[in-house]
């Protein structure tokens, strides 16, 4: 690369990093605004207690643990194509986990008491477990990346990769269980929730990885080998189909239990924005379209189809989380089964949620933080996944 080209790439990098920094700063500013005025300036209330920041944060955390799978497949199952991508996957995991945590913490009513959260851990709380699972994930991801980047540590990378794989399963189980253990609310009390979160993390993490990889290849004027791309696409499709299966099981079992039918009626049919996001956002845009882009003869060879499918999966993920988290809260608690309840505290009434600008900016700020960390990380460390195509072909690894 000649000097001028290098110079221009350098400028572009600083522009990107500055853009990410700006979005992050706006997010933090929004959080400070919320902190100063209290949550009165948000759309959240005593009915919808968790809102948009939680949708963003949970997406980031779940996708963070999922993206590490790309690395695990390489180290644990010895697949060369994935091994090359271990470091980038590790960085993405690190960045999204950190960003997700920042969003959750900045949304706290008393974000200034972060030290209290760190020093008082109640071990019967699923949140409490997560206080241990998250730092553990950082540590393991860090050690794992170290084993991948340092030649002398390389022999340990398989063990570290295995540890990371196990830990990430625990982490997503923990995230899913935040909801799964809430017996009070009809939307969440299902044993399927924790495994559903694991499989969602596989799909979302892989989708994020595909988008980031594509962006890096475009940046460097490279192209992914078609055989490798096809392999990734098929794996992504498998994950998306598995998410579809779990969501179907979740709703079908709910419909089967008589006491849950009113809730299902609400979330799938009458609930306004929630059924719209479920059918239009998650099912059509986030599941069926990506599958069509991956498998349909006319579409699958279209340039950029894999990236488009990945982006749609991410859009679908946000819709799904919105329906799950906020839809679950909007439906009233059934405190007195068999009776119609009414009060000045909105008992028995379906609630509506209109997110305010600050909470949206906080969520987007989280994406900005992850973006900035990845841009800087990729620039400073050499994480571009480069396949030794000749070698792979010789080994027969690219045969379909």
């Amino acid at each position, binding site marked *: 690369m000649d000097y001028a080209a290098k110079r221009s790439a350098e400028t572009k990098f600083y522009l990107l990093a500055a853009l990410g920094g700006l979005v992050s700063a706006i997010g933090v500013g929004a959080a400070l605004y919320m902190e100063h005025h209290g949550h009165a300036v948000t759309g959240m209330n005593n009915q919808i207690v968790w809102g948009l920041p939680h949708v963003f944060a949970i997406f980031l955390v779940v996708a963070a643990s999922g993206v590490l799978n790309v690395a695990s497949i390489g180290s644990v199952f010895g697949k060369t194509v994935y091994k090359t991508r271990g470091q980038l996957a590790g960085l993405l995991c690190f960045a999204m986990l950190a960003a997700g945590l920042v969003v959750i913490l900045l949304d706290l009513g*008393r974000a200034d008491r972060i030290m209290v959260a760190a020093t008082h851990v109640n071990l019967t709380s699923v949140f409490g477990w997560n206080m241990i699972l998250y730092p553990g994930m950082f540590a393991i991801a860090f050690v794992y990346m170290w084993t991948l980047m340092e030649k002398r540590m390389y022999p340990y990378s398989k063990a570290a990769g295995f540890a990371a794989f196990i830990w990430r399963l625990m982490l997503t189980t923990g995230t899913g269980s935040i909801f799964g*253990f809430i017996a009070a609310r009809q939307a969440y009390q299902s044993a399927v929730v924790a495994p559903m979160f694991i499989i969602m993390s596989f799909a979302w993490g892989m989708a994020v990885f595909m988008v980031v990889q594509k962006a890096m290849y475009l940046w460097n004027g490279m192209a992914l080998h078609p055989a490798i791309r096809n392999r990734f696409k098929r794996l992504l499709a498998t994950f998306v189909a598995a998410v579809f299966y779990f969501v179907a099981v979740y709703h079908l079992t709910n419909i089967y239990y008589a006491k849950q039918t009113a809730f299902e009626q609400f979330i799938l049919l009458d609930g306004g924005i929630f059924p719209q996001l479920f059918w239009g956002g998650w099912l059509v845009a986030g599941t069926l379209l990506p599958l069509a882009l991956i498998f349909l003869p006319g579409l699958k060879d279209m340039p950029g189809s894999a990236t488009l499918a990945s982006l749609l999966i991410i859009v679908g993920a946000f819709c799904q989380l919105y329906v799950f988290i906020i839809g679950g809260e909007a439906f009233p608690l059934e405190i007195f089964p*068999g009776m119609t309840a009414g009060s000045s505290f909105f008992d028995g009434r379906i609630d509506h949620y209109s997110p305010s600008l600050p909470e949206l900016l906080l969520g987007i700020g989280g994406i900005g933080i992850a973006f900035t960390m990845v841009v800087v990380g990729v620039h400073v460390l050499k994480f571009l996944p480069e396949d030794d195509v000749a070698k792979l072909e010789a080994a027969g690894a690219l045969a379909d």
Partner: protein
Amino acid sequence: MTAPDNKRRNFLAAAGAGAATLAIAPGINLIRVSAADEPQTKLASGKVRWGMLVDTTKCATGCDACVSACHQENGIVEEVEDPRQRSQWLRKIDLVEQGTGRQHSLPMMCQHCAEPPCVDVCPTGASFKRADGIVLVDRHTCIGCRYCMMACPYKARSFVHEPLTTQNPEVPRGVGCVEGCTFCVQRIDRGKNPACVDACPEAALVFGDLNDENSAIAKKLKEVASTQVRADLKLDTGVRYQGI
């Protein structure tokens, strides 16, 4: 430490020796100095389990004397615009039975469960149960995550959405923390009833020690059929209802 300070310390030591000496000393705030020598008020004891029985057959639709008394006692005056963001420690719920159409009304608040989900889920241990069964929020360690609000089956907890200035001295509450009915713990510790119990014009609320078989509440619970709300969750609530 300087000499005058030592003198003062000696004086305090002497003062501590007996309240009688103090009574003669002029210009001294006796109460503060002698408080340490007063017999300790009884601390919350594990032998006691505070509870309440609500007779819904006496509770009139439209009457909210208990709610007003609660808000007066606990200083709940809020000006947040969105009513859904206002705190409600105690609220009246109007119920209509599906099918029969029977109507009644009852007060709903923290049920002071023996197995409180809010305490289980609280990441910092700020949600806690006192030895005598009262479930409280320690606002010194509450980080405002609202997980307890997600977990409470009774919607008994509120989040303070705006900075406050109108607290009563005995009832601290503030922005960014979660709160709920305390059974008026500041009154109970001084041997009084919760404010709602004293305010009810129909005497529909009975408060007392569930563990003391001679207490009015224990006697009544032995006599009449009572229910726990969401008994299916097996939370062993401290608040019981009659006539639901």
